[in-house]
């Protein structure tokens, strides 16, 4: 039984590192995009990373359901965690793909805000992955990460609308507005989904001790 348990943990650890690899790549692509450099190669790497993570997710789910666990509802909770993380990575892939085909130069006036949003997204994802790790062993430590995610998400929301306001004011090209709006929304969607997972983890922390 010990070997089996370690294996499930290992698959999840592999998934987490693939997830972070994809997020780091997206972070680099966005930084390059701000400097008007379209990095199609890195965008492809994000797609590859998402595919790898997808395979790991399937392996994890198969293992989760094929092996009897003491808490069947924990199987469902773990399933939800990994599938939700996968959706975040899916949005990251969509963002990378959109950046690779964006047909305009980046508006330099938005450089600082977009860079900040990019940083916040990365920090939120990092905290999320840490939270999904420590929830296995320490609820108090998990709460700390969840609180970080919550506060960073609020800053990200402010930034999103700040940038949208500036975009609508200054850009003349409607197509550029629509596409840039789409980019910001995609990036924020990843953040928003991360917060949904954070809320779910918070629910688990409350649910388990009060059973």
């Amino acid at each position: 039984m010990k070997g089996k348990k370690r294996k499930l943990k290992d698959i999840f650890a592999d998934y987490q590192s693939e997830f972070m690899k994809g997020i780091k790549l997206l972070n680099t692509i966005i930084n390059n995009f701000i400097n008007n450099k379209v990095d199609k190669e890195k965008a492809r790497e994000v797609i590859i990373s998402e595919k790898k993570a997808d395979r790991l997710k399937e392996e994890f789910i198969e293992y989760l359901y094929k092996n009897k666990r003491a808490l069947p509802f924990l199987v469902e909770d773990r399933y939800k965690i990994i599938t939700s993380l996968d959706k975040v990575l899916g949005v990251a892939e969509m963002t990378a793909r959109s950046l690779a085909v964006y047909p305009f130069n980046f508006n330099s006036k938005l450089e600082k805000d977009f860079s900040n949003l990019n940083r916040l997204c990365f920090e939120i994802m990092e905290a999320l992955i840490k939270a999904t790790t420590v929830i296995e062993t320490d609820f108090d430590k998990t709460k700390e990460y969840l609180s970080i995610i919550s506060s960073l998400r609020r800053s990200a929301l402010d930034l999103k609308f700040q940038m949208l306001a500036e975009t609508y004011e200054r850009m003349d090209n409607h197509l550029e507005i629509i596409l840039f709006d789409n980019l910001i929304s995609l990036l924020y969607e990843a953040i928003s989904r991360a917060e949904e997972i954070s809320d779910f983890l918070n629910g688990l922390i409350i649910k388990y001790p009060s059973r």
Partner: protein
Amino acid sequence: MELTQAAILIIIIILSIVIAFGIGSNDETFSTIYGSRTLQMKHILILTTIFAISGTLILGRNVSKTVGTGILTITITNSVVITVLISTAIWLILSSILKLPISTTHATIGSILGIGLFLGGSNSINWNTVLVMSIYWILSPIIGYFVAYFSYKIIHKLIINKLSGLRSFERAEKIFSYILIAVISINAFSRSGNDCSNAVGILTGIEAGVMDLNLALLITGIGFSLGIIVLGRGVIKNVGTLTELHPSTAFACEIPISVILFIGTLYGIPLSGSHIIVGALIGLAKARKTPTKKGLWKLILIWLLTFPASALISVMIYFPTSLIL
């Protein structure tokens, strides 16, 4: 063997299977294991079959159990015993079809009362014994309620509240589930041996010398397990889902109850296992502030109906039974 003797033997075998089937059909021993999802139904049915047959073969040898002694003051004939057992089995089967757990002893006493009143009037009944038993049946769910309520609170405070991290919860629940399976398996083993003794008694008592004891035990063991497989699964599902269960909460419910039932048996207190477990599950739901399944009134109603219904069935069955035996 003469033709008539062979025919009677076949009838007796069928009757003992029906009785064992009826008792098995209302056996809810594994309900908390099912409710807490510790084992799947197919595994539960395999285990119950193993314990039903082995329990009957090993523990069912003690066939000295008497039906009606202490309650009836009239002479208890073979036809009275058979009538009581068949009517009990019928009421158990009817309750099991409705997926409702009842007390086997409760149904047996109801049948005894019916036949006693019919044959000897109210003077043939030892009403004091009936009254004492009735008090314990009322007390049983109340005892179960409070025991489960407080044992959950204690386990929660001493163990669950001190856990942190999903892995530690999983580990604790795993330990709880192992203990639960072990205790309930012992319960199932002893219960099948004890409950089947009535059905075995018919085969060995009435047809003394004709039927081999091991064969009689095997037949009733199979009848008992068939009862669980065919109808008992519905009762197990119904009781197991009265409230949300996990191995730890099922543990909080089952273990103290097993201890109380053991003490009850030791001191000759006729507590009802079915009544206690239902009361305990309600107590557990109250302690956890979680809802119970709708339709609890059906349980109360069937408990109230058990006495008059089994009494009525026994009177109806007495005529054909007395003609055969």
